[in-house]
């Protein structure tokens, strides 16, 4: 089946920043992404877990599939939000069906 090259960008970021990242992506005209819940994790600022957090902290993961030539726009938009924040950005090569959608 015919597939087309693309980039898969995964941004793990604190839940209170979700709205800001959504907004930054929108500003950069990036309108395709999926948000996954995160149960817990560990990083330089220690270990955490979501059970019973009543929204105290918590992270979410944005997954954004994008044409290669739009990657830099995305990374710049994301970086502006993530910069000072706790968070991780990871890019992988990918292939998609139905390239016209991206």
């Amino acid at each position: 089946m015919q597939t087309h090259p693309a980039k898969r960008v995964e941004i793990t970021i604190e839940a209170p920043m979700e709205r800001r990242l959504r907004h930054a992506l929108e500003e950069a005209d990036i309108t395709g992404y999926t948000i996954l819940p995160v149960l817990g994790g560990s990083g330089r600022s220690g270990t955490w877990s979501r059970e019973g957090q009543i929204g105290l902290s918590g992270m979410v993961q944005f997954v954004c599939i994008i044409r290669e030539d739009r990657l830099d726009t995305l990374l710049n938009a994301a970086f502006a939000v993530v910069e000072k924040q706790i968070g991780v950005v990871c890019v992988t090569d990918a292939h998609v069906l139905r390239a016209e959608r991206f």
Partner: protein
Amino acid sequence: MFELAAANLLSPIILSFALGLIAALARSDLSIPEAVAKGMSIYLLFSIGFKGGVAVADNGIDAQLVGTLAAGFILSGIIPFVAFGLLRVLTKLDTLNAAAVAGHYGSISIVTFVASSSVLESAGLAAEGYMVATAAIMEAPAILSALWLASHASGESRMDAGLLREIMLNGSIVLLVGSFFIGLLTGNDGLDLISSFIVAPFQGVLCLFLLDMGLIAGRGLRETKGALGGGTILFGVLMPLVGASFGLGSGLLLGLSTGGIVLLMTLSASASYIAVPAAMRVALPEAKPAIYLTLSLGVTFPFNLVLGIPLYLAVATMITGG
């Protein structure tokens, strides 16, 4: 007062908190799902807001009500400056972290407020219904004070219109204020309709909620052991007393009932662990949650729950003569 503290200590509410604390410190995997915890907190906010509104509908709106709301607004805005000063004296926190911590102490802990109301009820003391509205009003101004403190220190502005909007429209505040107005509009008829939901099971839900708070506080303490210095911990038990004395003074000036004074003391003494931390993550991301959350939830919250509230009650009773 010792009797009172002992009775308070042996209430299922405090013991549930202790159970959570012990379970977390012993590394039990006991946990309450996030969705259930959030559901309980929605229930509690809706219930206290509604009951407050009904109480105001019963008593009517007067000058004292307006004065108390104004006092709450001012207390929330001023206390962070006092906390900031005390932090500079007692601890070595940098200005950014000190500002973030200070913001928590101007704002309020709604669960501490609820626990205090329960103690008043057991003691047979009534309080002004609009204290709930005062609680809602005290949530936010402290955040602005904290951001002003941080901006002042770093020279760069920490406030933007979007953030301000977000703070005012924070879910907890909207729910508390909204259900207050629903209670105000529907009054005792409304209360009759839903009292077997919002009144009867209230204390029981509070037990489970405090079990969860204990679990969170215990995990926080375990993970940040050592992160808090002695001076910081001292601040965590001194600051509520300072805050409470501000609340006491204002309550006396306003001529509140003994119960009302206790609640205003509790509000001033308590530190936020929901609205303010969320705002700080956005506005002051460099400040360390390990410090402000542990202090607020792991030190000041249990202090108020176990010792603070009975103390405030004893002092207020003594001064007002009951």
